């Protein structure tokens, strides 16, 4: 676990942080390229790759036909041939048509080749409800995909982490699933000019407290912080752990915190059944059962497809209110 962040006054958007990470790594390593729908001429469907075609040219910033399965497979092969692909899915929802390539090929290539060649590739894109995009376009894939061995899964909650984690992802020698959020692309946060990377498997402590451990990853970390601020007004203090990566999972930091607070609430935007939250709680029970003063509580999305209507989508997702209630329930206050 860490609390360290490089101090800076420079504020940039989440999407700019992603762009800087890719551009810096592309300048440093000629093998790195970006392939996906609308990434080049259009500057990215979400303007993440703005200006990159101009800088790196069409050989390295490559527009694809609408063929997710095709470009995922092409990328995997390019990685096996010695290149370092970054594959952008407009949305992780659309990666589902490429399921065999990303789940049945990339994470198993090293294993199936008897350890001979792996697949250094980054799959990245928007994950989670983007805001009224309806259920087929609002997938949270972490619950589904984290089950697959052989890949890393990073899920940054702020611009600083987006940049540091993406640089690590691009340098990683294994497949990385990189989960961004359309809802955070415009969020601004401090990102230093100077070079830094963030190691996988090291959570960051966003707030310190004694009463309850709040664990989350990705966008809901921000809701945990909102809840933490509210709860502080009632003199309830929480550790807020932002896991940064789901695989590897920094379980040691969670256990350390739970040993201090005796209470655990895991906030996870995927569905509850067999979710990352479930995994966190299982591991805590396995390692720190005797330290728990109360059984762990999960806050997930409801067990239904993402609703289309604004209010319904809001009610379905984890939010501050649900988190506050969960924390209080571990303290016997509701």
């Amino acid at each position: 676990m860490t609390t360290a962040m490089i101090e800076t006054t420079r504020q940039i958007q989440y999407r700019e942080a992603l762009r800087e990470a890719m551009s810096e790594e592309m300048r440093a390593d000629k093998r790195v390229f970006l392939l996906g729908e609308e990434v080049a001429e259009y500057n990215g469907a979400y303007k993440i790759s703005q200006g990159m075609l101009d800088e790196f040219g069409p050989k390295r910033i490559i527009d694809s036909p609408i063929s997710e399965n095709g470009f995922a497979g092409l990328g995997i092969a390019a990685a096996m041939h010695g290149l370092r692909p970054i594959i952008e899915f407009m949305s992780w929802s659309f990666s589902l048509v490429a399921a065999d390539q990303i789940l049945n090929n990339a994470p198993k290539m090293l294993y199936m080749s008897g350890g001979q060649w792996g697949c250094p590739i980054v799959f990245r894109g928007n994950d989670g409800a983007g805001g009224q995009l309806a259920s087929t376009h609002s997938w949270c894939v972490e619950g589904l995909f984290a089950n697959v061995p052989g890949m890393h899964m990073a899920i940054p909650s702020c611009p600083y982490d987006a940049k540091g984690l993406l640089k690590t992802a691009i340098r990683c020698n294994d497949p990385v699933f990189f989960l961004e959020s359309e809802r955070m692309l415009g969020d601004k946060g401090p990102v230093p000019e100077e070079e830094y990377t963030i190691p996988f498997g090291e959570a960051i402590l966003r707030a310190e407290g004694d009463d309850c451990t709040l664990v989350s990853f990705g966008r809901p970390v921000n809701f945990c912080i909102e809840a933490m601020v509210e709860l502080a007004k009632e003199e309830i203090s929480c550790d807020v752990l932002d896991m940064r990566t789901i695989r590897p999972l920094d379980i040691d930091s969670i256990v350390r915190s739970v040993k201090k607070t005796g209470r655990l609430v895991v906030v996870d935007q995927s569905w509850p059944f067999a979710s990352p939250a479930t995994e966190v709680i299982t591991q805590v029970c396995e390692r720190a059962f005797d330290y728990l003063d109360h059984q762990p509580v999960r806050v997930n999305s409801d067990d239904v497809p993402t609703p289309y209507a604004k209010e319904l989508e809001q009610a379905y997702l984890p939010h501050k209110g649900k988190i506050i209630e969960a924390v209080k329930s571990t303290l016997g206050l509701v």
Partner: protein
Amino acid sequence: MPIKVAYQATIEYMQILDEQGVLDADLARDTLTDDQVVMLYEHMSMCRRLDEIAFKLQRSGRLGTYPQNMGQEAIASVALAARKQDWMVPCYRENAALFLHGLPPEKILQHWMGDERGNQIPDGLNMLPMSIPIGTHMLHAAGIGWAAKLRGIDQVAFTFFGDGSTSEGDFHEACNFAGVMEAPVVFFCQNNGWAISTPRKKQTRAETFAQKGLAYGLKVRQVDGNDIFAIYKAAQEAIVDAKAGKPTLIETLTYRLGDHTTADDARRYRDSDELDAAKKKDPLIRVRKYLESKDLWSADLEDAMVERNKVKVDDIVARATNIEAPKTSDIFDAMFATTPPELARQRDTMHTHSLGQFPQQETLSNPTPHPAHA
């Protein structure tokens, strides 16, 4: 030994009503009647207006992201060729055909306003809801045609998709299945030149989209997609072939006059020259010219129609908006044929406690209610 030709093919291109509104009377024989043309003109004009109003609704925050259909209204003809029992399996740029086949237009608006009830298809209408994951619905069209055949029901499945969608594997699997199963399916590839900002030439190096069907043994043809007569005739003939177990792929050459969706600005990647040239081929303009040349239309009739369409579209918007807002509990009610108890509990508490997160809850079958909801 001399090298022989193993296979040779040509692709027909058909235009019946040209940009100037001049009709090829031979080709037009036994296609649309004057009344039908007048009706289509009014319907397509209504669709155009609905698109314009939808755009404004989106800009004023009353509608979510919306894909305008502008310029592709001639696809409506398919619905005139189709029989009542036939199926429509859409993506999102063939509203004009769906409405004419019987879908109340407010359904489409309601969908884009963020309401799954917009996807409910009225009883007696054979249509699937719009499909957002590109390409996946074409397999359903192949399957609908095949299922009808298995059940001995005389139905043809029409499906619609864009040029870009042919790059998805699903397109190829759907064509192959339809061919192999001899399923009554008609594939309409609306080639509007663009897939968001990706131009047609980046999508495929094939000269036509129609020829892709040849590889799967489909009948194929290319038609002017802004020509209601050509689309009608192609659809009519495809129905006959479909019933005989021969699916068809029809490529319609058209143009998306608007942005990809309201979240897009096509001026950033499309030449204004290209757009200006496309505007001259507008399906509405040529029909009007044709009707005028036959003395079936006039400025007075046009004015009266514009007024009628204003009222129609206002009514559609009113019907789309004047429905009861969905309740939060609705999200649980369409999950299973019979709502299981743990989901019913989620609905009643609006918590995922049903899955064991709640402290006092020892079993699922006999949970202690959460004090906050007891």
